[in-house]
């Protein structure tokens, strides 16, 4: 049993970082990620952690210095949002190829333009192709636990890839919730210490990291990266089992909520999953068989497990908090792909919601369920929830 604290999602991330006590934290402030960095800076200022904290001059340098620290042998962490992620994109994309298991919080925020500081997933959906492990969190509790989990998954010798732990800007990052913080000593034992095997600071064994690789070898590097990504599933399960021993919880690739006999299922990431659960309960109370699936591990994407979980669902609505202009929305695309192999494919509908922080209500998700149950779906055209007429 842990101790319950009333904290925000940002503070929950900082709590995880306090317990991890990384060697190095590098960050640049950006709304709504800033309270993570501020909270952690207080821990540094009060000597609660002995991390070397580097407050840099931009997100590009934030990820660059995090990469430098991690390559040097440190366990290094960072955090960002939206424009910050966009600015550091070049280095974010370089990190998996360097096989550096950096763990970073991403507080999801809409990408400019127009400028907007509120939640959507357009930031993360722009980096899902570059090779980071992507983990999503419904609430502050999950933010905390996912960060602990991510450290171990990323650093596993079979993986050695960076991981991003997502939480919704403001909705999760700034809302106070009760969060159960587990025993410091147990958590520290769980996260352990990063191996110095590949460290640049091991000067007795000089290594050249990040060389120029031409067409004769580049392809093999990328193939090896994919191989490492495919190992994440088994490692995630193993590490999840270990973390369960502390928390008593399970760490599945995704969460299903009342889907067993569901005649319609809604798929939704992060905080809106909580709203969807309330909508499911309201519908169930009316005798309507509906359920929800919340992806947690989004990269690598667990296609087979998703397919198995949804094989009996007659109709599925996928709610995306970002768009891929001129193409199917990102989460919808993955679910279409996952379900293609089924003998009896479900009807599907894509919905866009909540861009730029627009609220989504339980009544709106209930309306989605009604639409799905009515059979009036059009898999070729996405629909918009809560958009001005």
């Amino acid at each position, binding site marked *: 049993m842990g101790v319950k604290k009333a904290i925000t999602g940002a503070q929950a991330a900082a709590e995880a970082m306090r317990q991890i006590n990384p*060697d190095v934290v*590098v960050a640049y402030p950006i709304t709504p990620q800033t309270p993570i960095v501020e909270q952690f800076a207080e821990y540094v200022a009060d000597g609660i952690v002995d991390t070397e904290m580097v407050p*840099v001059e931009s997100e590009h340098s934030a990820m660059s*210095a995090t*990469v430098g620290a991690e390559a*040097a*042998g440190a366990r290094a962490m960072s955090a960002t949002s939206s424009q910050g992620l966009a600015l550091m994109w070049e280095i974010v994309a370089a990190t998996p190829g360097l096989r550096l298991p950096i763990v970073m919080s991403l507080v999801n925020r809409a990408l400019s333009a127009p400028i907007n500081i509120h939640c959507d997933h357009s930031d993360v959906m722009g980096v899902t192709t570059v090779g980071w492990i992507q983990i999503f969190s419904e609430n502050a509790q999950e933010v905390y636990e996912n960060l602990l989990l991510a450290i171990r998954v990323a650093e596993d010798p079979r993986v050695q890839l960076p991981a991003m732990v997502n939480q919704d800007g403001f909705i999760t990052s700034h809302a106070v919730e009760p969060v159960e913080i587990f025993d410091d000593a147990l958590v520290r034992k769980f996260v352990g*210490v990063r191996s*110095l095997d590949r460290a640049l600071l091991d000067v007795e064994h000089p290594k050249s990291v990040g060389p120029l*690789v031409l067409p004769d070898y580049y392809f093999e590097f990328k193939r090896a990266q994919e191989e490492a990504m495919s190992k994440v599933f088994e490692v995630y399960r193993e590490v999840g089992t270990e973390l369960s021993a502390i928390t008593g919880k399970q760490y599945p690739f995704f969460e299903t909520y009342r889907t067993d006999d569901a005649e319609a299922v809604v798929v939704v990431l992060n905080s809106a999953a909580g709203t969807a659960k309330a909508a499911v309960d309201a519908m169930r109370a009316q005798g309507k068989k509906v359920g929800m699936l919340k992806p947690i591990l989004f990269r690598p994407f667990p296609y087979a497990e998703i397919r198995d979980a949804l094989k009996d669902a007659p109709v599925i609505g996928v709610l995306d908090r970002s768009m891929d202009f001129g193409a199917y929305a990102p989460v919808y695309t993955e679910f279409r792909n996952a379900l293609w192999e089924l003998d009896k494919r479900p009807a599907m509908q894509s919905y866009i919601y909540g861009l730029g922080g627009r609220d989504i209500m339980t009544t709106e998700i209930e309306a989605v369920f009604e639409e799905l149950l009515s059979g009036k779906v059009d898999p070729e055209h996405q629909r918009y929830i809560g958009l001005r007429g």
Partner: protein
Amino acid sequence: MPTLQEIALKTSGADARIVSGHRMCSGCSIGPLIKTVLAASDKPVIVLSATGCLEVVTTIYPFTAWNTPWMHVTFENAASVAAGVEAAYKALKRRGRIEGDVNILAVGGDGGTYDIGFQALSGALERRHKFMYLVYDNEGYMNTGNQRSGATPFGASTTTVPAGKVSFGKPQWRKNLVEIVAAHRIPYVGQAAVHNTLDLYKKAQKGFNADGPTVLAVLQPCTTNWSFDPALTMLYSKLAVETNFWPLYEVENGVVHINTKPSNRKPIEDFLKGQTRFRHLFKPGNEHVIAEMQTMIDDEWARLLKIEESGIQF
């Protein structure tokens, strides 16, 4: 201070920090430059390279010429990567996970320093990470075939600002990097030239040993894109100093000291002649460009002398 022979011994053989087998152009001055700088460290050195000639020619996978820990990430972030390495070094040392001391060296060309890496450099200097930043300045994007940079001199023809019927090449003067970095109030900045090994070595030593961030700017004549006879690399470096085009000086704890004062400074034409990038300046109608260049060099030199004489701290 070691002799030239002693430095030569430190820069060659299997124990050298960078070894033969790299792919530098014949006559390239990066080799002697980086060897001399690395030899000046009395501790193990971790090198962080920006994208550029040095990175490309020393590491094409599966080979490496580096016999010391080395890393490259991208073009504009060598200073930020070095900052991260320094942070890791401090943290791991404090936690008793590593022993011994190291020097941290970030290296970039002028493109990766004056231009795209400028913000990262300024940030790292301001935060006072203990590392040395070495810029090998070949006055343009030479790795990719002579494009204009903030270090390209007035009048030079580059592929992005070529000389033409209505253009004499670059119409702007170059950035004064040494003064800009000195304005960060860092403990040491040196401007050196590759032909003067002892001066370069001494400055590298000061840079490594100072308490805080330091910058070493070294002119790196490029045989390929300045287009001169590869046998003349050291001569062009020497001419750059003898014409006051590239004065050898340093700013130590804010105080300027000029290391070499040519008794009879040579006319700038002596440096320009034989370089393809300046060939057009010797055509009729462009005399004014050379004249203007000479005036600027003389004015800059006079200004530098005044700063030195004044003793005023940067």
